């Protein structure tokens, strides 16, 4: 792979190269603030739009979890900043927390923001292939955000049927008591899907057609592959749920009966449509996080990625298998129990490629030269925490054990051990790693490490108690456990309080991150163009890259992205992708 010496390997390569300078001058004319930051078609600006919107939504999701965790630890006590939490408040808050964190934090930050930033830079071109479609995608996303927030203000309040929105509860206002909130919620979700469909088409087409000359399939950095596979996965799985969302809106507003058993509909149909999307969705957000980890551990470990192709193939295998596991969310939902056996098999099968991916990452550390920088700490933290998330999933995939664990806090702790590492730990790895590129300045390492350690420890101190609560049978979505004697056994309330206190620590320490982030944008030490001595193409662009990305002309690619510590390079332990091979080197 490293011998990819031919500069113009692709049919379109030469053609593209010839135009580079003719087109290089666009975007340099003066733009107003609004045009520059709101109406821009520049992929980097659109990244920031997604990133900051995602961060804002994380504050909403975080506030929701603060309120309902306080209610669980101290039932009935007024929560500072909210007041007394009623049952409908509680249901609306858990629904908001779940849907916001997945659809409006993990998706926009991991896929949209990072995809937008990294794909054009890492494959060496100046923008997405459809810049205006890209802008439209963000604007639709923004509309979905507004609709979601509006749903809190309408009569009846926000939707409270959990992020899974199972009908008939979600379909009839007589059952959920939120006549407007539920429709606004599902409309916002559907719009968000449309935004990401547009974005996904853009991403996939960009990777397929606009790679730098010389960049072959196996020269593409893993994080780009992962975002692309995730986008395809999303496109292939979300369609039925888009149709389902239309059906649900009709059930709510027009009075059709797609999900109403009394009139010939079927509530289980929604569950199939939802989880046919919902389970691949887990991998839609997992894969980019895995990609980030691959980049960070290779750069900061100065080590070639172990078995590049294996990682790629396991990612593809995971994507494919993820379409055949959805009903493991429905073991006890009234589906034919014999079907559960089939889905137990597929669920345990999917653990194999995912486990293999983790093994590959661990193997990459062998013989590395690990620099424990902040991004590296986050990436290593991701591997460790995700391992825990993966292992506890086995309990739930095993149908027999799921009878007991289904809908308990064990499930909740399990998927937070996957989603928190994905949506936060990997995101922090990405932000701290690419911050010098994005803003041209370095973040503070010492505060970064404080943030890492306090976040990681308090995260574990939230969810280990919740595992223990789950083992004691505590079940989810109960706003006040005091009504059930068996949920008030000795010690259970102490565990709830412990989890809540840890959550308060976790939330407070994010202030350190935000302060470090904002301070470093303006006053951090200046970063040069490649502070980590990394190989991939984005580090060849100036920090921050101007409109058009590569002012010295778009790069050509001569080798894969992970050529660290190559024996031919002597003392220099990196070998950038764009650097032409020395004269006379063997091809």
């Amino acid at each position, binding site marked *: 792979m490293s011998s990819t010496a031919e500069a113009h390997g692709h049919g*379109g390569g030469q053609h593209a190269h010839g135009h580079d300078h003719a087109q290089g001058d666009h975007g340099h004319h003066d733009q107003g603030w609004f045009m520059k930051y709101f109406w821009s078609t520049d992929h980097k600006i659109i990244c920031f739009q997604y990133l900051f919107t995602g961060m804002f939504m994380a504050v909403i999701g975080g506030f929701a979890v603060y309120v309902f965790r306080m209610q669980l630890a101290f039932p009935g006590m007024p929560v500072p900043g909210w007041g007394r939490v009623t049952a409908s408040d509680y249901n609306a808050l858990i629904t908001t927390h779940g849907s916001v964190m997945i659809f409006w934090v993990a998706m926009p930050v991991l896929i949209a923001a990072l995809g937008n930033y990294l794909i054009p830079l890492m494959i060496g071109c100046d923008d997405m*292939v459809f*810049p205006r479609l890209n802008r439209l995608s963000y604007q639709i996303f923004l509309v979905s955000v507004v609709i979601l927030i509006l749903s809190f203000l309408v009569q009846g309040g926000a939707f409270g049927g959990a992020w899974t929105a199972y009908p008939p509860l979600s379909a009839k206002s007589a059952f959920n008591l939120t006549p407007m909130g539920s429709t606004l919620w599902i409309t916002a979700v559907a719009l968000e899907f449309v935004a990401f469909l547009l974005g996904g088409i853009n991403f996939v*087409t960009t990777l397929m057609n*606009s790679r730098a000359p010389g960049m072959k399939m196996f020269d593409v950095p893993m994080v780009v592959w992962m975002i692309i596979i995730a986008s395809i996965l999303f496109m292939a799985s979300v369609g*039925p749920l888009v149709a389902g969302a*239309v059906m649900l809106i009709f059930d709510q507003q027009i009075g*059709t009966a797609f999900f109403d058993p009394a009139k010939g509909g079927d509530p289980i149909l929604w569950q199939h449509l939802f989880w046919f999307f919902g389970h691949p969705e887990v991998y839609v957000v997992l894969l980019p996080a895995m990609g980030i980890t691959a980049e960070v551990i290779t750069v900061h470990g100065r080590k070639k990625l172990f078995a590049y192709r294996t990682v790629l193939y396991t990612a593809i295998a995971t994507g494919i298998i993820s379409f055949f596991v959805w009903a493991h969310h429905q073991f006890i939902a009234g589906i034919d129990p014999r079907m559960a056996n089939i889905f137990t098999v597929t669920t345990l099968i999917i653990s194999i490629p995912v486990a293999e991916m983790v093994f590959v990452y661990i193997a990459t550390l062998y013989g590395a030269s690990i620099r424990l920088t902040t991004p590296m700490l986050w990436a290593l933290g991701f591997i460790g925490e995700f391992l825990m998330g993966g292992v506890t999933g086995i309990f739930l995939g095993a149908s027999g054990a799921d009878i007991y664990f289904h809908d308990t806090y064990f499930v909740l702790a399990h998927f937070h051990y996957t989603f928190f590492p994905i949506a936060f730990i990997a995101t922090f790895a990405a932000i701290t790693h690419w911050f010098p590129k994005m803003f041209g300045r370095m973040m503070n390492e010492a505060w970064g490490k404080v943030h890492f350690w306090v976040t990681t420890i308090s995260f574990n101190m939230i969810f280990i108690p919740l595992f223990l609560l789950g083992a004691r049978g505590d079940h989810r979505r109960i706003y006040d456990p005091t009504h059930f004697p068996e949920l008030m056994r000795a010690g259970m309330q102490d565990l709830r309080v412990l989890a809540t206190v840890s959550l308060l620590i976790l939330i407070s320490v994010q202030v350190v991150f935000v302060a470090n982030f904002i301070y470093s944008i303006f006053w951090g030490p200046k970063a040069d163009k490649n502070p980590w001595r990394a190989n991939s193409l984005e580090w060849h662009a100036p920090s921050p890259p101007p409109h058009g990305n590569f002012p010295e002309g778009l790069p050509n690619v001569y080798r894969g992205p992970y050529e660290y510590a190559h024996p031919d390079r002597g003392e220099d332990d990196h070998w950038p992708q764009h650097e032409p091979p020395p004269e006379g080197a063997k091809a």
Partner: protein
Amino acid sequence: MSFPRPVATMREATGMPTGRLAVWWVIASEIVIFGGILGSYIMHRLGHPEWAHQSIHTNTWIGAFNTFVLLTSSLCAVLAHQEAEKKNGPGAARYLMFTTLGGLTFLIVKSIEWTNEIKHGYTITSNTFWSFYYTAAGLHGLHVLAGMVIMLIVAADARKGKELQRVENIGIYWHFVDVVWIFLFPLLYIAK
């Protein structure tokens, strides 16, 4: 507004123009949307043999006529592509107008048909069969409408000889809309 085109737009590492590649991805994501609703419909239909009593009230002849109209309009889209290949912009635009006219005929016939059915009491809420009938066909109708709007824009450019490659792209999309109808027609009309 003038829009500077990035280099990215002009590269073709796969050998397929970016626009056409994107149309195929649009179609791929549309297939799963229609697949979801049709799959749900088929599962329900198998579970409810009594829906046959409802579906006899659909008008197969009108459905067949509309199938014919759409197929003809697809033919026009092919002819428009041929003209575009010959760099004959106005010719391509003319055929695109015929295609749009086909779409318009389809929608008019559809609205007459629906008015008639609603008058006879078969509304979207009267039975889940009719819910599927109106939802699936309505979703398809929206795609026809969207296709027509895009086609008019493409035709306006093509008349001036600009962006002729888009004639093929909208044609591909139009064939897809046509194929969706080819699935809807037997499922909603012929299966009695």
